[in-house]
């Protein structure tokens, strides 16, 4: 039996197949983290989506909390805001955008104010003075109070009500009273009836770390000076102030000024580390198909009641892009959007010492590429995971365990189970039939029927090649193994006279089409051209057609299968996610070997699309659906009137391949070929069979242990009187618990581990 070298754990290699720039540009395609358009348009960066969600749920307290993050005085802002968000609402494209400002006004009025936490907060050591009155000083005081600066406002008015009145005179009495109460509740010192002169300013400069002023006070004191508007700062005069006309500009100006104060208080340049300020663009994709309420709620009065506001907020469609997450069981399992997962998987490849915690997610992707079709930007998670696997292999950090069984299976297909023969009577052939390893493993009778049909009806000779296309090596990220398979197959095909390959499996077709100069077609295309053989028939009830992920982007293949199904009299039911958008059954990318749990979810995801029987054109899909108890048929079974029956276990899959090979060798090519027979009886309890299938232990592994026992007599007897023997095969030690029955053996249990165990001296 072939063996694959296990990696060491302490070697460090520096081969990199994936660059940070490459992964960054790929991750950039994912728009999941892009802001919704309303939020992007807001200079104050209100989390509009969350705000409207809370308001729609009637949770005005939470909505107000969110709103207060950008508005220290919510009633003032919601009255005077110009609402640039509303124009950007995606619902505007279908009808009326959400009346966000009106909802804000209702939330500001009816929302229960959360308890002020200012009293117990540790105040900053640097203090700030604000000179003057108006919207800008008011908002700035509010912003700085949130940042826990000790603030003193010096104003010309004689009391707080007069101070607020001159700034928010447009509020009605009720709103005014509320905002006055809010202002009184804030930890801001006021000094009234001040007269602003240069002397006053200089005097305060000595007592405060940062000085701020309203635009009118700044202009009065420094008529010649000009501020830097983006910083809201008079640099020469060391005074925080700037132009702020209207509620919106004042609020945005206060935000910028508060950041400038922050930087100045720390003796840092106010120009640096400011982040992104003001409105931005967004690349978010939004599926508008589910938008229902397209007309704005008309209020019973001038303002919304709480119920009306909640109803209006409920019209928000909560713009977000989850196109890939909706359809992909893998992304759903890890609950991560691909932009984030791609970065994490890339980081996983860069770890030299330490845990590679993303190995499992990296190996769980089926590499089916569905995301690249459903994503509006074509994000291809398969490409990321595939590159990452190759990278891990090339740096010798990839564990062998998740893929070893499949890789050994590939080697088995191209060694013991391999067969390449020209059609009897031909030396060189025009065609070669390449059914694929899973077809021979799962439906050997169908493979034989198809081959004999092609031989009978095609001119120029049809060779047969039973083997693996190399996709397994490719999926495992093992480029060398894939390359060796490629060269091996090319040599075999050359011996046949470089015939046209007739692939029986879309994934083989995809893999083989990467061979230089190789001509390839699918058996479905050939059958459509020469006509279906007699004896085939469709199912007697409607069935769902599951498109193979190997045929993604192959419109001709998808159409050919549908045409064959129609000719067979199949009635096909429509399913979501068909054609190019079809999900993987869980076999692709070796997901079924590396992560059974996720693979099972993938199969479930395929099956939840319809209750009907499934017709597929990839044998792995047929097998996985049948294993889940669904009536499942491969299109070639229907074409040739064969029935592969119940799905075989892992040992039967090997046995089927060998039996097909030997039978064809004997019956078509007259060769002497027989399966090796044991010269002693070997039986298994049903429990042992099931256990072996679950634990990926082959009959031949058990035979290896028994033969070792027969030779060495080494075993232990347990308390039940059963014997337990073991043998190291490749990178694993297999243990078998059995009873001797005359000449033969009855296998009760089997288990394995990869660690080597030895006796320790001393």
């Amino acid at each position: 039996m072939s063996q694959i070298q296990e990696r060491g754990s302490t070697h460090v290699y520096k081969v990199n197949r994936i660059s940070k720039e490459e992964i960054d540009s790929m991750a950039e395609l994912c728009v999941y983290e892009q802001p919704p358009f309303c939020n992007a348009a807001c200079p104050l960066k209100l989390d509009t989506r969350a705000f409207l969600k809370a308001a729609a749920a009637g949770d005005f307290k939470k909505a107000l909390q969110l709103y207060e993050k950008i508005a220290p005085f919510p009633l003032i802002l919601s009255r005077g805001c110009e609402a640039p968000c509303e124009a950007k609402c995606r619902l505007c494209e279908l009808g009326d955008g959400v009346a966000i400002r009106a909802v804000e006004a209702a939330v500001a009025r009816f929302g229960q104010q959360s308890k002020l936490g200012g009293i117990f907060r540790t105040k900053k050591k640097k203090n700030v003075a604000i000179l003057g009155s108006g919207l800008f000083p008011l908002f700035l005081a509010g912003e700085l109070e949130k940042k826990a600066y000790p603030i003193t406002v010096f104003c010309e008015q004689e009391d707080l009500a007069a101070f607020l009145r001159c700034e928010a005179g447009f509020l009605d009495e009720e709103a005014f009273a509320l905002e006055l109460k809010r202002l009184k509740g804030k930890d801001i010192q006021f000094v009234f009836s001040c007269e602003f002169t240069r002397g006053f300013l200089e005097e305060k400069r000595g007592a405060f770390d940062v000085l701020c002023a309203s635009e009118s006070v700044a202009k009065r004191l420094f008529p010649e000076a000009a501020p830097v508007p983006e910083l809201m700062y008079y640099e020469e005069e060391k005074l925080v102030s700037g132009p702020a006309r209207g509620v919106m500009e004042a609020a945005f100006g206060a935000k910028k000024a508060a950041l400038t104060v922050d930087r100045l208080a720390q003796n840092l340049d106010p120009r640096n580390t400011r982040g992104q300020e003001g409105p931005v663009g967004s690349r978010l994709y939004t599926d508008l198909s589910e938008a229902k309420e397209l007309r704005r709620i008309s209020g019973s009065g001038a303002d919304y009641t709480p119920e009306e506001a909640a109803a209006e907020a409920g019209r928000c469609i909560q713009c977000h892009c989850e196109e890939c997450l909706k359809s992909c069981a893998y992304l759903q399992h890890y609950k991560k959007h691909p932009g984030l997962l791609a970065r994490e998987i890339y980081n996983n490849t860069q770890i030299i010492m330490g845990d590679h915690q993303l190995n499992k997610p990296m190996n769980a992707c089926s590499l089916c590429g569905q995301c690249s079709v459903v994503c509006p930007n074509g994000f291809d998670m398969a490409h990321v995971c595939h590159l990452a696997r190759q990278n891990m292999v090339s740096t010798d950090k990839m564990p062998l365990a998740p893929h070893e069984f499949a890789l050994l299976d590939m080697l088995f297909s191209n060694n013991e189970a391999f067969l390449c023969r020209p059609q009897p009577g031909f030396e060189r052939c025009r065609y070669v039939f390449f059914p694929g390893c899973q077809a021979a493993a799962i439906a050997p009778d169908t493979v034989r029927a198809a081959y004999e049909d092609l031989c009978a009806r095609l001119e120029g000779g049809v060779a047969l090649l039973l083997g693996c296309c190399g996709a397994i090596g490719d999926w495992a990220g093992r480029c060398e193994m894939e390359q060796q398979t490629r060269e091996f197959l090319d040599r075999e095909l050359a011996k046949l006279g470089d015939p046209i390959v007739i692939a029986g499996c879309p994934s083989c077709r995809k893999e083989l089409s990467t061979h230089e100069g190789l001509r390839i077609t699918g058996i479905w295309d050939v059958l459509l051209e020469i006509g279906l053989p007699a004896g085939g028939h469709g199912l007697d009830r409607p069935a769902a057609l599951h498109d193979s992920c190997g045929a993604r982007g192959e419109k001709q293949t998808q159409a050919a299968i549908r045409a064959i199904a129609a000719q067979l009299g199949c009635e096909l039911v429509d399913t979501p996610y068909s054609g190019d958008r079809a999900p993987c059954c869980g076999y692709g990318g070796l997901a079924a070997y590396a992560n059974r749990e996720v693979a099972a979810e993938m199969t479930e995801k395929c099956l939840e699309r319809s209750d009907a029987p499934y017709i597929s054109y990839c044998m792995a899909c047929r097998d996985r659906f049948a294993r889940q108890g669904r009536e499942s048929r491969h299109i070639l079974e229907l074409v040739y009137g064969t029935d592969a029956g119940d799905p075989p276990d892992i040992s039967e899959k090997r046995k089927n391949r060998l039996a097909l090979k030997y039978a064809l060798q004997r019956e078509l090519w007259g060769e002497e070929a027989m399966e090796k027979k044991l010269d002693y009886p070997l039986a298994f309890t049903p429990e042992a069979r099931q256990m072996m299938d679950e634990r990926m232990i082959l009959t031949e592994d058990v035979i290896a242990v028994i033969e070792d026992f027969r030779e060495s007599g080494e075993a232990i007897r347990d308390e039940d009187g059963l014997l337990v023997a073991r043998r190291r095969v490749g990178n694993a030690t297999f243990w078998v618990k059995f009873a001797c029955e005359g000449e033969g053996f009855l296998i009760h249990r089997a288990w394995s581990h990869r660690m080597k165990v030895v006796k320790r001296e001393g």
Partner: protein
Amino acid sequence: MAAEKNYYTIDPQGKLSCVKCGVPLIKGKAKFMYLDNGFPVELPVCPVCGFVYVPEELALGKVASVERALEDK
């Protein structure tokens, strides 16, 4: 001198015997090795031929979880 550290100990308690040597297994010193790492353990061992027994529960439990952890290093 401090006692030598063993990561895992199983005492056969006379319930297991070596078929070849016809003697009961005893608690003996053994070592698991995987990916350049070694772990001293005490497992049922034949005192004559040195056959080391790894019970099913140990193989599927502790051994499997340590294998996973080492594979991801």
